[in-house]
């Protein structure tokens, strides 16, 4: 085994900043990262063993204990539950005889919960050894486990047909469906690969490219909405030995899956966008940081990259432009929502725990390996190509004045046609609900758990950076759903699981709020609890990154827009309680001495 570990270390040049790649390779080859592997890594990389372990223990898909020959990761997002996740979970437990978090005694099957895997439009879904299984039913679970017991290969576990579009590609062969239901400029069939690089870039200077992007007023599609042109300009001006282009494909916001679809159906568009960005900022290296949940796309995307190299769209003197060298490699995350935050992503790219960095300095000045770096969302790069192709002026005719262009929405939950819809910014929520066939709607979660939960009286509002800002996640809840118990609580658990833990606020406060919510859900709440929730949520605001700053949003926005749901659960005529259950507190000792708790108030 030591030879295999050494080979893996050599494959990544023995560089500590490629530790993540090494760990993933070891995890995949052996099913876990053993003590011996940690020792070899620490010796070869000059790190202490705890230092290696701190990276392993940060990521959900890395483990120091065997995860089973078949490691089953079942999505636990809110929409998974809405579409029968509980029955799937129970079926897996019944068929395997173990509970989630365990591995069968023979080491064959491991069951694990995992946060949103980007399949909300085809839940319940699970990842088994990097292969995605969608639309699971208890019968399929039984069958899959039987197949595993028979020792069938991963491909043989599949008896579904492949999904639509490129999911049928020989290098993809996924049962995932793309579900593109509305096309705009990005998802359009009008795109011709390489046209921008070969026909347009040769006539433009890098400054010209930046000017055109600035003129389009495009803002980042990941959610934060920073003006892309300025980001590229700042990076171009920053001094460094090397400038990097990083594509953020970590889409971890529950309910988002549009980057999955873009990368499946239009990967060339994204890669061409990265090359355009490389030309603009003067960088020759691009990295696609892809979430591990999308590992099943690896061979396909590598094939696309190779194809582009062969057509002189990547590599040296691209598109015939003397000195324009640019290539792209793919690096994977390993299961951490916070790595979607750009500076946490950089830490992860450098082989470390995904803890966000303090800003300033910003990545455009000091990014990957301390060098000027732009980090943009998948959709931003894809859109940039269309802007350069048609001009910034052309782009501004779509959308609104402060939110130009289109937005690709990932729509899921209670609707007839979940999937991906590309709309112009300025679209309103009511039209959106009518577009997807959503009826009897109680609420819409705009922008995922870190966004806002809105009620019907706000469905006239429009999507855009100055009104309802969104990275694209739209989850619809009908009137049968229990918003507090099934939605808000699930979102709070998500933030608790996904906090990096670095800031004292985000490490501790979501749990305090969740416990308070549980108290209210148990019917033990009093009026003061609602005031506390509101006041205590503010303690999260000074957290370092967006995760911490928004971790109370599920509670804050539901408290604002669905206050009656909380009030209905409160104990009547009680404004205050001691917040302490005396009977419960002495129960253990009473049991021990055989007494019944009795108090005189």
């Amino acid at each position, binding site marked *: 085994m030591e030879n295999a570990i050494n080979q893996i270390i050599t494959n990544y040049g023995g560089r500590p900043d490629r530790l993540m790649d090494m760990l993933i390779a070891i995890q995949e080859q052996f099913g876990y990262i053993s003590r011996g592997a940690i020792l070899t890594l620490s010796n070869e990389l000059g790190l202490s063993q*705890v230092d290696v372990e701190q990276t392993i223990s940060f990521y959900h898909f890395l483990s120091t204990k065997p995860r089973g020959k078949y490691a089953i990761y079942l999505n636990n997002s809110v929409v998974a539950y809405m579409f029968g996740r509980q029955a799937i979970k129970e079926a897996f437990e019944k068929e395997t005889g173990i509970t989630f978090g365990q591995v069968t005694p023979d080491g064959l099957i491991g069951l694990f919960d995992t946060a949103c895997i980007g399949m909300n439009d085809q839940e319940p879904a699970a990842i088994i050894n990097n292969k995605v299984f969608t639309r699971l039913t208890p019968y399929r679970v039984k069958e899959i486990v039987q197949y595993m017991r028979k020792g069938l290969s991963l491909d043989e576990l599949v008896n579904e047909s492949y999904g639509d579009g490129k999911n049928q590609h020989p290098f993809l062969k996924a049962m995932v469906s793309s579900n593109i239901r509305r096309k705009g400029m990005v998802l359009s069939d009008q795109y011709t690969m390489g046209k921008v690089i070969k026909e347009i870039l040769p006539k433009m200077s890098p400054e010209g490219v930046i000017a055109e992007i600035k003129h389009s007023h495009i803002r980042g599609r990941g959610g934060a909405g920073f003006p892309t042109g300025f980001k590229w300009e700042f990076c171009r001006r920053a001094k460094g030995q090397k400038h990097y282009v990083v594509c953020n494909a970590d889409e971890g916001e529950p309910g988002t899956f549009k980057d999955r679809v873009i990368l499946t159906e239009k990967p060339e568009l994204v890669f061409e966008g990265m090359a355009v960005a490389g030309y603009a900022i003067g960088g020759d290296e691009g990295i696609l940081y892809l979430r591990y949940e999308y590992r099943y796309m690896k061979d396909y995307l590598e094939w696309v990259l190779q194809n582009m190299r062969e057509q002189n769209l990547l590599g040296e003197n691209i598109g015939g432009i003397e000195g324009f060298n640019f290539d792209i490699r793919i690096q994977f995350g390993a299961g951490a929502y916070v790595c979607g935050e750009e500076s946490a992503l950089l830490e992860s790219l450098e082989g470390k725990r995904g803890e966000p960095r*303090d800003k300033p300095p910003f990545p455009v000045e000091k990014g990957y390996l301390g060098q000027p770096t732009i980090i943009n969302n998948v959709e931003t790069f894809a859109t940039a190509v269309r802007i350069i192709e048609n001009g910034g002026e052309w782009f501004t005719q779509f959308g609104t004045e402060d939110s130009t262009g289109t937005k690709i929405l990932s729509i899921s939950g209670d609707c007839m046609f979940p999937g991906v819809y590309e709309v112009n910014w300025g679209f309103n929520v009511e039209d959106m609900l009518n577009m997807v066939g959503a009826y009897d709607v109680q609420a819409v979660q705009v922008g995922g758990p870190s966004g806002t939960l809105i009620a019907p009286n706000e469905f006239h509002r429009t999507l855009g950076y100055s009104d309802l800002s969104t990275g694209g996640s739209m989850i619809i809840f009908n009137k049968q759903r229990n918003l507090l118990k099934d939605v808000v609580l699930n979102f709070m658990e998500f933030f608790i699981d996904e906090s990096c833990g670095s800031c004292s*606020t985000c490490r501790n406060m979501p749990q305090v709020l969740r416990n308070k919510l549980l108290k209210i859900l148990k019917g033990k709440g009093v009026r003061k609890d609602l005031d506390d929730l509101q006041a205590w949520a503010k303690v999260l605001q000074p957290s370092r990154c967006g995760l911490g700053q928004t971790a109370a949003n599920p509670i804050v926005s539901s408290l604002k827009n669905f206050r009656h749901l909380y009030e209905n659960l409160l104990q009547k005529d009680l404004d205050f309680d001691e917040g302490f259950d005396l009977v419960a507190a002495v129960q253990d000792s009473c049991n021990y001495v055989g007494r019944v708790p009795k108090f005189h108030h």
Partner: protein
Amino acid sequence: MANLIKFKIDGVECMAEAGTYIVEAARQNGIFIPTLCNMAGLIPKGACRVCTVRINGRFMTSCTTPVTDGMEIESNSPEILDLRKSIVELLFVSGNHFCPACEKSGNCELQALGYLFQMMVPRFPYEFPKKEVDASSPKIIKDQNRCILCKRCIKSIKDEQGRSFFAFRNRGNHLEVVLDKEMGMKMTDELAEKAMRNCPVGSILVKEKGFAMPIGSRKFDKKPIGSEVQV
């Protein structure tokens, strides 16, 4: 001093060299901003958030943000002071901090901040989490009950090759700072002492040295924290 710039803290005119972190620049101007994870000589990380100030409407940590010319910093407003107090209270309820029984009492920065903010009882419910004590090293005890995850030991306690004795494990509210088993066996007396000194609380203790200095004559027993900067 090259390149002196002017800035304001709560309306008070201050001066410092450009690029100085706010917390240090404030100190040079006789203004105390409380900190926990910050430590002179170490790269700051802004982990505890206790030094939060407000600049242009945004919360920033003063240990990681350099002063710039004309910067206006809000530090001792009632809102910010209550925020800092909340964070200290949050640290108290999320660990098991029983000051009267703690070897570090009087030398503990968390306890000192509790007094500074006149914390009577935390507003948040105690969580009483179950935590481990690691006494496997011959030199030190690592008590997770008291750890506030400030990273000071991780950043400052290293061997000659630059390898860390301490590191994080897990994430979120399962996060802890652990000692490397193998390196912990070979820790020198000097490093053990340094680790205890650098720990702002009583999470790292040198064995049999916890009460070397009697309670009553310790750093914060006589004067409150920050009094060396601001009266």
